[in-house]
């Protein structure tokens, strides 16, 4: 006989299973249409899922808004370019790379993992300083970090190609590769959130002082979550590079920071399900509006939105969601399997955690 607490823990682990099933269904539906551009959109969406889930590991559990994660993304993306580009290409476009890096020609998987680890290492170093701050000061410091990364990568001509793009990355990140990474990220996020560290961190999110009084070392848990978070955002950068084939520092600055934070908030910052659902909903919406902008036929008449309308509508929809549901679409709840039969007895003492 399981006690209520045990079963609650077990049910919490059904969340990633459901989310991964949703992602899988998403890819299956898209591939069933056989549309090439839809498949590309699916890969982009899953890259954003990886990023936003990575972002959620830190932001969702700690409650500190980070503007800096696009910086980890850039670090991962460029690292993979250094490791996997053909040496002749690097000699031409990135002449200042150290010789061992210039001659490196790694297979995809180790390059992805190492790039993620580099982003995690940077997260460890930066976090060690920034996470001593709390609240809004920490958010500003992450902003400063993003600006530093952007300035360095936009100007370090011989190593990052500066503002002229790095081209020629192998475009292997299709919808299936990105699905695997997105699933790994979802699984890791769920495991972390339900670990002792994740629970302690969420306690600090609810009440810093009370958590500290209960002996929670906020700094250590925040740092751990930032490192894990840095790894997955770094990996999402790798995937983005290998999906577009082109890297430019501009793609890792305010635009992506904004849209991913918006996805997180619209979905519901308090739960992992919110992170995934936010990305899916907004991505599908954006794709729909983009197509609408190009014009569609309804009953013989062709309708088209004026160009630029898509962004404006997305912004307005986001504001409306925030006004109507300030806690996001999921309201901080997780998707879970319904309770099993033997739980009914305990239903009274089940304070359903809303995270």
């Amino acid at each position, binding site marked *: 006989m399981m006690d209520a607490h045990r079963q609650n823990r077990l049910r919490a682990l059904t969340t990633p299973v459901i989310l991964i099933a949703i992602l899988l269904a998403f890819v299956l539906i898209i591939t069933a249409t056989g549309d090439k551009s839809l498949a590309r959109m699916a890969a982009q969406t899953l890259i954003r899922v990886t990023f936003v889930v990575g972002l959620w590991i830190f932001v969702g559990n700690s409650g500190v808004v980070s503007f800096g994660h696009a910086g980890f993304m850039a670090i991962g993306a460029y690292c993979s370019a250094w490791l996997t580009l053909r040496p002749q290409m690097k000699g031409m476009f990135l002449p200042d790379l150290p010789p061992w890096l210039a001659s490196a020609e790694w297979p995809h998987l180790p390059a992805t993992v190492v790039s993620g680890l580099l982003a995690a290492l940077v997260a460890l170093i930066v976090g060690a300083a920034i996470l001593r701050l709390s609240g809004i000061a920490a958010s500003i410091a992450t902003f400063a970090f993003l600006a530093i990364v952007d*300035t360095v990568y936009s100007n370090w001509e011989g190593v990052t190609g500066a503002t002229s793009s790095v081209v020629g990355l192998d475009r292997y990140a299709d919808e299936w590769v990105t699905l695997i990474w997105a699933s790994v990220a979802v699984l890791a996020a769920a495991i972390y959130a339900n670990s002792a560290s994740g629970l302690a961190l969420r306690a600090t999110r609810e009440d810093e002082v009370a958590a500290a009084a209960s002996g929670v070392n906020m700094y250590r848990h925040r740092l751990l979550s930032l490192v894990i978070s840095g790894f997955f955002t770094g990996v999402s950068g790798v995937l983005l590079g290998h999906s577009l084939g082109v890297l430019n520092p501009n793609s890792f600055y305010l635009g992506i920071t904004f849209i991913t934070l918006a996805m997180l908030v619209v979905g519901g910052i308090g739960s992992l399900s919110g992170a995934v659902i936010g990305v899916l909903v907004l991505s599908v919406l954006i794709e729909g509006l983009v197509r609408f902008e190009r014009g569609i036929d309804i009953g013989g008449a062709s309708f088209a939105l004026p160009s630029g309308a898509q962004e404006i509508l997305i912004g307005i929809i986001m504001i409306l969601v925030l006004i109507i549901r*300030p806690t996001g679409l999921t309201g901080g709840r997780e998707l879970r399997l319904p309770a099993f039969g033997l739980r009914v007895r305990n239903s009274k003492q089940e304070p359903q955690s809303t995270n």
Partner: protein
Amino acid sequence: MNAVPQLFFDAAALGGIYAMAALGIALIFGVMNLVNFAHGEYIAFCVFALIVPSSDAVAVMFLGKAPAILLIPVLLALGALIAVTSEYLVFRQLRNANPVAMMISSFALGFVIQNALLAVYGSRPKAISLWPDLNTPISVVGASVPLLQLIVIITTLLVVSVLALLLKKTRVGLEMRAAAENFTMARLLGVRANVVITGAFALSGAMAAAVAMIMVTQTGVADVRMGGQIMLVAFIATVIGGLGSLPGAVAAGFLIGAVSVVLQAALPLDARPFRDAFLYTLVIVSLLLRPQGLFASASAKPRV
């Protein structure tokens, strides 16, 4: 040509712009704990209000044709208007939401304004000449200084002192200071929340319009993205100045202007493109040393 006074004027002029933008952000943060990311877009909006809507590369003046005596008050009013409107349509609906949701919605609002400008004016930066005579250099204590720099410095001082008077001497000012100190308590004591918040937004929008006029005259370019960069710096200035502290925001604005001008002059040539990286590193260091801000008031410290 004398290097030190030159440096001083450069620093004071750049710092003045930052200080004014930071004031606009700090005013709103003080009364409603909102980090208003749309502030940069208010600036861009005011810039584009000067020219005729079209996507051509050469800008045709619209409001900008008006004589200065008319143009300045109209543009200030326009800035106030867009700020107050956005408060009414968006932020008033979110008054009880948590600060993160408000911050994201201001981000979204900025996104809407920016894309509306893009849709109307196109994405190419436009050449625009507003009061070109102001860029003629004149000679002050051995430095050649564009007249505009002097005007910026004087305007900043003027704006800051007028604002200080307004806050110190008028009823609305008193209410604003009370609200910035402790909003709930102030309301309990009879401060009219809507008046204060609308007032803060109006002032903040007017400040954005002032920044817009200065930037256009100085750079001669209208670009949809021009608000973003200055908003970032201003935002950082409000934080390292001590959130909610108006004198802190002004001081930190000047400080950041000074530091970036000094870095520009002092860094070796190879490192100069990385100036902003050094600047932001200093920002992080300053936050680590004084997380509550350099000029924070005693009440800014969170109480348990």
